[in-house]
């Protein structure tokens, strides 16, 4: 329920039958339509039991209804009064005619707007809405003086009154077979057939009044809209168009942008929209973070504004990510946004926001990973592309296997030590690892150097969790496939249109025509050697090292982890070894690995660096393979 336990009451009057005036045909139908619409829980949520529908009532019946509704229900949050019938201005006052109204004694026999105002002043509903679909109803202006008494208006918290009259003082209100034009226009707004706005979950009568003024301009009616003492959120009815615009979230972020930062947004307005739209389609993490960084960096001097934008933009893009076909898109987008904050973690506000984003990323990864685990249990082929895949999966499926394990293994890094979700994440990783080894062992292979960070994180976590058998099998499959192709892995950034050429070369085990598609030196062998040392598989791997004689492998080490999200890091060391030249056994590489190697200063930085390595694939978080105590501690149920 939008309004929870708020008291929302309605009086809807339609008068077709008159003792002293010509009969009308559609007024009762209008009142009924309005009543039935507004009591619906998905439209107005007015209380159907205590609201009143009066059809061609007498003056006494109207007075009784006003007394019952306004003075017998305690404090009222929202009160709406609707009238359709004859109306007219007499002696500077607007009167609504009911069945026994007499043209000669209107002040005694017709319903004066001033009377209603006096009732409202006394009952004081928090918000009152008055809609009059009658001839000359714009004449209600004459009665506003009653409302404008200085002793009841102007103070904070005093009642709000909105009035819509569907024709101006000198106009007649028209009817069609469907009902009064004004009422129909209002109902179209209420029930969503006409668009008012889509950025709030509720509509107020002023917005609707403005909309129907525009719409009825082409007719002879000019609705009049008055709002007094307006404050607070809209409360007249639900907004059926809320959420209809998938770009609503970003629009709200941009419109509410702090004025001090206008320049930053203006300069990147188009890119922001494009990158926002990409979140639900073909999404590229580097392109995404480039745009976000270009907007964020000018805000860095004001960390509160900086984090405010990051989190609000984050909320918008995460909502957008729900439109993607990719179960992991929400998690990946959240991760990318988190990595954007990495250079600014020295600010406490940014660090706090980063922690919140890590939590959100972790939660999204648990949700996605759990869904994948459930899918794989019922459909062993769930990881295959659903659309447009086919033979391309010969290249991309091994990548997706690596991504599955890498992201799942990274999840525990994102939660603090005392967070129970760390255990949940570890359980999910263990489940996925076993499922992958059971159903996808043929695709657990080293095919591209872009897989290196995923293998590093998953092998280290499997080892930490004591999943020795699984870790050994994983490392064994990878090393076997590496040796089988003589270490000729596709370069991490192989153009997609060249993946077929690479596969054909790999199929023939002849890379002479595909030299530029192979990564040299690769980081995958470095990962496998360090994992072998961690798992005690060094001597097993040594047996086959001669088969990759001449293959060079590398590691990039950089102590400045604030750069870990940058396109190109600078100031680090490019370490390189060659099998058969300076490495003949796994131990040779381990012995020459620089110690102490760079480690992040905090768990927070380590977690974000892990995310960066998975997003960009051309950097390996080597600290996760070092036995430094940097890795997430184990939690038990």
């Amino acid at each position, binding site marked *: 329920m939008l309004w929870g336990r708020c008291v929302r009451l309605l009086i809807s009057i339609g008068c077709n039958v008159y003792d002293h005036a010509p009969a009308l045909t559609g007024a009762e139908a209008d009142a009924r339509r309005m009543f039935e619409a507004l009591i619906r829980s998905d439209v107005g949520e007015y209380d159907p039991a205590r609201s009143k529908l009066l059809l061609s009532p007498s003056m006494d019946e109207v007075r009784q209804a006003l007394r019952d509704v306004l003075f017998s229900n305690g404090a009222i949050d929202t009160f709406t009064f609707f009238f359709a019938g004859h109306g007219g201005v007499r002696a500077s006052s607007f009167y609504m005619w009911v069945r026994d109204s007499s043209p000669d004694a209107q002040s005694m026999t017709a319903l004066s707007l001033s009377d209603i105002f006096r009732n409202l002043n006394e009952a004081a509903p928090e918000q009152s809405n008055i809609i009059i679909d009658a001839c000359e109803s714009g004449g209600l202006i004459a009665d506003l003086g009653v409302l404008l008494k200085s002793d009841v208006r102007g103070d904070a918290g005093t009642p709000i009154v909105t009035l819509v009259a569907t024709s101006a003082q000198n106009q007649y209100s028209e009817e069609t077979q469907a009902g009064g034009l004004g009422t129909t226009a209002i109902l179209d707004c209420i029930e969503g057939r006409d668009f008012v706005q889509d950025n709030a979950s509720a509509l107020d009568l002023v917005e609707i009044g403005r909309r129907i003024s525009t719409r009825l301009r082409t007719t002879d009616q000019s609705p009049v809209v008055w709002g007094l003492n307006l404050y607070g959120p809209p409360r007249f009815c639900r907004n059926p168009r809320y959420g209809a615009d998938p770009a609503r979230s970003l629009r709200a972020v941009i419109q509410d942008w702090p004025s001090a930062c206008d320049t930053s947004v203006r300069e990147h307005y188009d890119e922001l929209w494009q990158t926002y739209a990409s979140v639900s389609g073909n999404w590229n993490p580097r392109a995404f973070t480039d745009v976000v960084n270009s907007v964020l960096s000018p805000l860095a001097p004001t960390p509160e504004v900086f984090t405010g934008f990051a989190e609000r933009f984050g909320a918008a893009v995460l909502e957008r990510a*729900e439109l993607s076909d*990719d179960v992991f898109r929400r998690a990946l987008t959240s991760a990318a946004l988190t990595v954007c904050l990495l250079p600014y973690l020295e600010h406490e506000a940014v660090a706090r926001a980063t922690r919140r984003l890590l939590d959100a990323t972790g939660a999204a990864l648990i949700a996605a990973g759990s869904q994948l685990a459930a899918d794989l249990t019922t459909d062993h082929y769930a990881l295959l592309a*659903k*659309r447009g895949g086919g*033979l*391309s999966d010969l290249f991309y499926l091994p990548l997706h296997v690596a991504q599955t394990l890498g992201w799942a293994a990274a999840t525990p890094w994102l939660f603090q030590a005392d967070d129970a979700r760390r255990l949940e994440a570890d359980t999910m990783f263990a489940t996925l690892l076993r499922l992958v080894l059971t159903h996808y062992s043929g695709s657990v*292979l080293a095919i591209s150097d872009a897989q290196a960070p995923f293998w590093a994180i998953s092998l280290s976590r499997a080892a930490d969790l004591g999943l020795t058998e699984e870790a050994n099998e994983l490392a064994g499959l990878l090393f076997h496939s590496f040796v089988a192709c003589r270490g000729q892995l596709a370069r991490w950034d192989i153009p*997609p249109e060249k*993946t*077929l050429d690479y596969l054909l070369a790999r199929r023939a085990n002849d890379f002479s025509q595909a030299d530029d598609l192979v990564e040299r030196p690769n980081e995958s062998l470095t990962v496998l050697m360090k994992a072998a040392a961690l798992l005690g598989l060094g001597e097993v791997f040594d047996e086959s090292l001669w088969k990759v004689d001449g293959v060079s492998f590398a590691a990039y080490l950089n102590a400045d982890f604030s750069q870990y999200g940058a396109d190109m890091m600078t100031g680090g060391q490019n370490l390189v070894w060659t099998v058969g030249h300076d490495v003949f056994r796994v131990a040779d590489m381990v012995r020459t690995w620089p110690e102490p190697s760079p480690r992040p200063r905090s768990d927070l930085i380590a977690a974000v660096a892990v995310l960066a390595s998975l997003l960009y694939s051309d950097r390996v978080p080597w600290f996760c393979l070092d036995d430094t105590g940097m890795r997430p501690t184990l939690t038990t149920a």
Partner: protein
Amino acid sequence: MSDSAQSSKDGYFVDETGAAAFNTSFTLMLAKLQKEVVSQYISPSNTHRFRHGGDWNHPGAPEAIGGGMQTHSAIVETQFQDLVDNDLGAIDRSAQHLIEAMHRQFAQMLYSTVSAACDQTGNTVDAKAEGSLEDAFMAMIEKIQFSADKNGKVNLPEVHVAPDTGARMIAALEATSPEYKDRLEVIKARKIEEALGREVERKAKFVCYGDDA
């Protein structure tokens, strides 16, 4: 999350760009193989390509055979398990299957078009009626009009036959008498001369025809 934001998610690490690029490369590879197949039958310089749908029409040469677009299709199936097992042989198998199917359909179209054109003009030879393969061959050569290119080079006709018929025909021609071979050479020489003559007549239709070398 609002209701409108809900969608049916069914993919993991969706990368449609990568898959699309791979599929484009695969299609280009097939197109290259298909061109090689077609070039076995028709010189690439004598191949026209359609820009839009519709039959070829020769308003200046109404007697020319038209013809239009025909759809050739082939379906290839890849087993999920082959993908999961990373069986790279699936690429070769798929390509081979598709190319063989396209080759078959192309050859069928080519021969049926030629056959229809010959039937239409009556330019056919009945081997049985001729009495022997070598006589049928002679009659065939007699009925074929040789053509010369604009450089004055006469292209001799190609003979396409089924493999077993081809073997029999070669054997029969090799066993022919010297008189038969002489007669064949006389016909060829006459046909070549006629082709050159037609080419001279064709060039004479220009206002002038020079050497642009």
